[in-house]
């Protein structure tokens, strides 16, 4: 076949083919591979990234092993016009080009028409490259066939099994990764589960307040109750394995940052996570706190996906958009007082979790709450609530109203315990935007008190921190070895 191809050789055609064959530069693979890795990191598509790295390594090593094992010479009896390196079977150059193109297609290009066009383009590029190398007599046809099997067929199979499109879609529609798609089969499963398990006939289900939620997929549910057939609006929080993993990482980080002041035992399963929130909702309701009324939780997928259902505060608005009057400030401070009395800490007091409706203050998102918390944690709750209130009023007014429910020493302790890391990110950002030194002003108003040390160390915290540092070092070492083995540098 190569001799037949050689009969059409001419100087201009040879120049053209050498130009196409120049794609065989190591920099082509490096730029494409690093570009793909950077894009996957940028879009936080870590599962795709892990599969990509494994496939890249495995295919690269498989080709290396095969070339050495087969030990085939380059095409014989014909003048080789292009550059080559190493044994011929399978063609390493074709494998690498195909691998990087498949990597881009299956990790960065959304499935559907775009990917189909992408495959067509990739096919044209690969076809031209293979044709050029046959013309230049650098590869045998069979070298390229084997390379296509190793570089295309196996990785495509691996991508389809490890990151199937219907479960891990490549999408650029925005939104946080924590939020699950509630259409398709998952949507149907939610409707069915609420009907069968909670007796709620779902009329509509839609995402709600995604921008202020990262630990679950929040949903607004229009339902009709089976008993009585009333139309009710409910709020749902869909928890899945990715939320459980996020919770673990979040708690690990808090263990390192806070130390033994906090109970940071991670949940073992998604079911436990849902059970805990449902339990906290009931406990807070029983304590008379202004939290959503619980409606139980539904199992969407055993041990994988659960939907916690609760009252939806129709017409309520976030605290930062509410009109600040003494009634609202008193109600918000009373909620903290009630939590203190009930032996509960919310642990995530911030403007988006404190709602106002008809002058009533409502607390939402109790998933992080703790029963029998440390006094430090309760003091931090008070400080965060006072800061939230001060954003829409003045520290003086909030301090004055707080003294009706708390002792001056309580307030002093709250701000002695308050640090940048104890203030939720959202609240911290709003305080920065506000421009006033709210924490400083509260500290000035309250009696003098030495700061409560946050950085308390114990053996567990030291151990966790050391393990974390060692793990990071190990990951870096593995990455360095990976880069060396795959020739990405």
């Amino acid at each position, binding site marked *: 076949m190569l001799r037949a191809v050689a009969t059409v050789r001419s100087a201009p055609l040879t120049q053209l083919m050498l130009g196409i064959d120049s794609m065989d530069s190591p920099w082509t693979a490096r730029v494409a591979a690093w570009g793909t890795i950077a894009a996957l990191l940028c879009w936080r598509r870590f599962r795709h990234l892990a599969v990509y790295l494994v496939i890249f390594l495995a295919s690269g*090593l498989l080709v290396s092993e095969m070339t050495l094992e087969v*030990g085939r010479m380059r095409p014989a*009896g014909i003048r080789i016009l292009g*550059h*080559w390196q190493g044994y011929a079977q399978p063609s390493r150059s074709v494998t690498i080009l195909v691998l990087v193109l498949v990597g881009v297609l299956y990790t960065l290009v959304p499935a559907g028409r775009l990917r189909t066009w992408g495959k067509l383009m990739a096919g044209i590029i690969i076809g031209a490259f293979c044709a050029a190398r046959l013309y230049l007599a650098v590869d045998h046809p069979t070298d390229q066939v084997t390379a296509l099997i190793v570089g295309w067929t196996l990785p495509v199979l691996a991508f389809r099994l490890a990151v199937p499109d*219907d*479960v891990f879609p490549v999408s650029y529609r925005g939104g946080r990764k924590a939020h699950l798609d509630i259409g398709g089969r998952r949507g*149907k499963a939610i409707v069915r589960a609420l009907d*069968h*398990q909670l007796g709620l006939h779902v009329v509509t289900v839609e995402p709600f307040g995604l921008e202020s939620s990262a630990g679950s997929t929040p949903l607004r549910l229009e339902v009709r109750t089976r008993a009585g057939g009333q139309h009710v609006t409910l709020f749902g929080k869909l928890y899945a394995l990715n939320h459980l993993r996020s919770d673990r990482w979040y708690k690990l980080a808090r263990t390192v940052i806070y130390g033994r002041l906090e109970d940071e035992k991670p949940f073992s399963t998604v079911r436990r996570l849902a059970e805990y929130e449902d339990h906290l909702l009931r406990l807070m309701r029983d304590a008379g706190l202004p939290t959503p009324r619980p409606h139980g939780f539904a199992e969407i997928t055993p041990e994988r996906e659960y939907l916690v259902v609760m009252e939806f505060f129709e017409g309520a608005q976030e605290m930062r958009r509410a009109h600040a009057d003494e009634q609202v400030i008193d109600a918000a401070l009373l909620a903290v007082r009630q939590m203190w009395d009930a032996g509960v800490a919310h642990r995530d007091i911030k403007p988006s979790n404190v709602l106002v409706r008809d002058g009533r203050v409502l607390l939402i998102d109790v998933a992080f709450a703790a029963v029998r918390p440390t006094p430090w944690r309760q003091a931090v709750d008070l400080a965060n609530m006072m800061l939230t209130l001060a954003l829409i009023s003045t520290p003086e007014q909030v301090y004055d109203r707080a003294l009706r429910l708390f002792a001056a020493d309580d307030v002093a302790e709250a701000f002695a315990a308050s640090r940048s890391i104890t203030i939720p990110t959202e609240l911290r950002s709003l305080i920065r935007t506000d421009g006033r030194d709210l924490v400083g002003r509260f500290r000035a108003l309250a009696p003098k008190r030495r700061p409560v040390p946050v950085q308390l160390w114990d053996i567990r915290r030291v151990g966790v921190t050391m393990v974390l540092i060692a793990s990071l070092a190990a990951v870096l070492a593995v990455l360095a070895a990976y880069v060396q083995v795959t020739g990405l540098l």
Partner: protein
Amino acid sequence: MKRRQGSGPDPQRRRRGPLAAALAVALALSSAASMLTGCATLHDPVPSCGDPLRLAIIAQSVPGAGYVPCIGQLSEGWSSSAFEPQDRGTSFVLNSDRSPGQPVQVRLRASCAINGASPSPPRAPGVLTYTRLTSVSPRFTGTIYDVFPGGCVSYRFDFTTGPHIALMEQFESAIGLYPRQQLRLTLEKKLGVRLDS
């Protein structure tokens, strides 16, 4: 209230979970296995003089070379690595555990610059051998050239003075020169291919 499980997307996902995990494990194992076996093979990838079919790629790297270098008799403590045949020639290294970190670098090229090198006894018929020493003590360093029609093999060495006598003998006997004509006949006979166009 009735309770049904396994509806919606769930069974599909539950089936795929183990599959994906199995795939990940298989890939990881294959990677590890490839790495291990790869290392084992890469340890001695330079073709031996007794395996002419694998020598063809070295012959192709310098199309007119009358001889191709190959591994003859490796003494105890010696190994070869970094075998790199390409269209501009072939190179590899010979490592000795008595000269750690200072391998002998072997290169086959179409020509060599032998100026300043002194003639030595030839290593094969039709071969002119030259030696250029750049240092004798405390290290014995230099380059040996085997020059023949259409090509040249260079051997750059850097040994500690003392053990160098034995090391020089061992590495010279480790490298053989396989005649291209003989390789051409073998390939035609065994594979039915013509080595040269």
